[in-house]
């Protein structure tokens, strides 16, 4: 194991040579901090204090702003992504967990886990536009590439709620397996992939007909089925491969989008939660909650190249294009 690790670290040094350097932001749920990682040196360059229980993390204003859900403070905090200085707070509704920005850059759609609503926030004005009632414990948030359709998952209602962003009304509610955690559109906007943590599956939903086209299921030799709990999902920009974080199975599944078959399981840290690609799509960062680290996956070679120690219970991750 250790030998393999050392070897792969060596490979990493070769593979990143020449790659662009990006800044990786990781929210540490238990530390109330965000770790800042240089994607080239793969070292933590800075750790900033944020609000209580930071979870969802994203960029706005073309990467100029870093947004952090401070769940226990019931706010979203805005930081300057370059200077890391605090800019302002945004209203978020109670217990914000995950959010997604409209592709045009505004508004921000926030899942309020404790209040059965999605809050729509104008990030420039800092005002609440509206609240959309959804199922119990809203969590996952995905938006279509054209921004017309928002998908929210509700963990206890076990549904993916399709919301028309023009009217902010739900247009459909699709039943999926237990405890849906994340919604991700394919780059062409044709499908929505929804992970079900307790159900142990990813439902692939046709975005137009809202029918479940099929489900991705996972089997890992030597890992108890109960431990396979899909959470974060990211689909590569070319739309060919999906990466699914499998929680306490400590693996990221690589799934062929067309056939919905698992091609490989990549061993990462413990309780892998969320994922994000570097802007060039070459690296994938995973947050590993229980082992307090981030794993880096080489997307072309499908290898885990390194892990980087961050704060306690890393939760969300976003990579900035600088």
């Amino acid at each position, binding site marked *: 194991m250790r030998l393999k690790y050392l070897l792969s670290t060596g490979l990493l040094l070769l593979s990143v040579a020449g790659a662009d350097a990006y800044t990786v932001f990781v929210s540490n749920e238990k530390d109330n901090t965000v770790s800042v990682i240089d994607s080239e040196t793969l070292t933590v360059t800075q750790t900033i204090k944020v609000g209580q229980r930071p979870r969802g993390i994203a960029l706005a204003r073309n990467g100029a702003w870093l947004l952090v859900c401070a769940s226990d403070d019931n706010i979203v905090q805005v930081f300057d992504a370059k200077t890391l200085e605090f800019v302002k707070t945004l209203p978020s509704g109670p217990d914000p967990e995950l959010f997604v920005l409209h592709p045009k850059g505004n508004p921000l759609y926030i899942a309020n886990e*404790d209040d059965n609503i999605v809050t729509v926030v104008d990030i420039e004005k800092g005002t609440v536009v509206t609240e959309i009632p959804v*199922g119990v414990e809203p969590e996952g948030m995905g938006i279509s590439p054209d921004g017309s359709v928002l998908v929210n998952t509700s963990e206890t209602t076990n549904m993916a709620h399709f919301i028309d962003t023009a009217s902010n009304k*739900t247009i459909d*509610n699709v039943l999926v397996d237990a405890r849906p955690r994340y919604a991700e559109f394919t780059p062409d906007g044709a499908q929505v992939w929804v992970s079900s943590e307790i159900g142990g599956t990813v439902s692939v939903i046709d975005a137009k007909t809202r029918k479940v086209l099929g489900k991705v299921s996972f089997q890992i030799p030597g890992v108890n089925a109960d431990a396979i709990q899909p959470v974060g999902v990211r689909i590569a920009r070319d739309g060919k491969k999906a990466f699914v974080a499998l929680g306490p199975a400590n693996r990221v599944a690589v799934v062929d989008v067309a056939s919905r078959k698992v091609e490989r399981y990549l061993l990462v840290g413990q309780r892998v939660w969320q994922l994000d690609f570097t802007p060039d799509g070459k690296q994938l960062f995973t947050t590993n909650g229980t082992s307090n680290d981030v794993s880096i996956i080489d997307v072309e070679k499908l290898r885990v190249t390194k892990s980087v120690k961050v704060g306690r219970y890393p939760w969300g991750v976003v990579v900035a294009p600088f």
Partner: protein
Amino acid sequence: MGECEASRCLHRFRARARRLARALPTLALVVLASSSLPAHAQSAPQPAAETKTLGILLLRETLDRPPPLSLLDIPPNDEGLAGARLAITDNNNTGRFLGQEFRLDVIESASADALLAGAEKGLATGQHFLVLAMGPQTLLKLADALKGKDALLFNAGAPDETLREEDCRANVLHTGPSRAMLADALAQYLVWKQWRRWFLIRGQRSEDEAYAEALRRAAKRFGARIVEERAFEAEGGSRRSDGGHEQIQQQIPLFTQNAPAHDVVVVADESELFGEYLPYRTWEPRPVAGTQGLTPTSWHPALEQWGATQFQNRFRRAANRTMRPLDYDVWLAVRSIGEAATRTKSTAYPDIAAYLRSPEFEIAGFKGQKLTFRAWNGQLRQPILLATPKLPVSVSPQPGFLHQSSVLDTLGNDQPETKCKLEGAR
């Protein structure tokens, strides 16, 4: 077993029972409170054209029991009921998207006959799902009387092993854990800690003996050893008096003196008559576990893992108190019915009952993994929390205890050893 020997869950009803006993004749059918709750103040998005209603009946047996040692442990009047109400709200929150509405009716009585009459009346008016918070004798009486009818019963409170073993019934599912599951969960942790030598102190009530027996079985199963066993004679009477610690401080060290070398004191005192006196007072400085001290339980009000925080908050907002294990066990029963209605997209009894018994059924219960029913005796598989009064300490099954099909089946009686023969089920 007589009424006075009923299971531990029942003492939770005792404060309410005492008050009721004063106010009402013994055989009174107390209440038929409808609490069909609107799911959300806001209008449901895209409500389904036609709404179908599914009625669930909660039957609560009230029993007169002595008060607990600690003022903190006095059971609330709505214990269990509050869990049912939250589950109805949760079900309706999903149901509004599917044209399903869930309605709760409640019958409370100290009389088994009155409860049976209520159940039969409910059945006649289309209530096929009965959630039972009652002692094992009353439960069996209802299960046998309703045998062969379109009724599915959920045992949410009685931990008795016999209900899952020789006295199992095909029309009963169990959402609360059995004593063997609780004891196995504790044993795995104590063995993981290498605390293998146990000094067992048990009360004299029959449920204490049942708990002690579960501990003996668990010790044998997981490689621990009971090096000494003593029965504590807890005399009844008033435990509220001015003064008292002076005597207990003398009494407990003497009682625990001269035991063989042991790592931990395990206690079987379901009625909470003396167990809380043990910690910090034993002759040897040893931790206490079992019914007091480190306790195996289906729920803990401070659990925050696996998204439980929002669940706890929801409960607190609705009930104005924290969630107790019986609330959770009842919540699981009512949610299971809701989940089956969601998955089958039906409110018809045969559809839901069949789905609940099928291998497809699974439910999320804020314990980090899916919960499913054991086909051989209708017991819900579930992780068991190990907790001190303030915080969860661990969750069993513990790492390293393996099983060929589900590690959750390392808790409680497993399929090869079960004495349950379900008649006409599955």
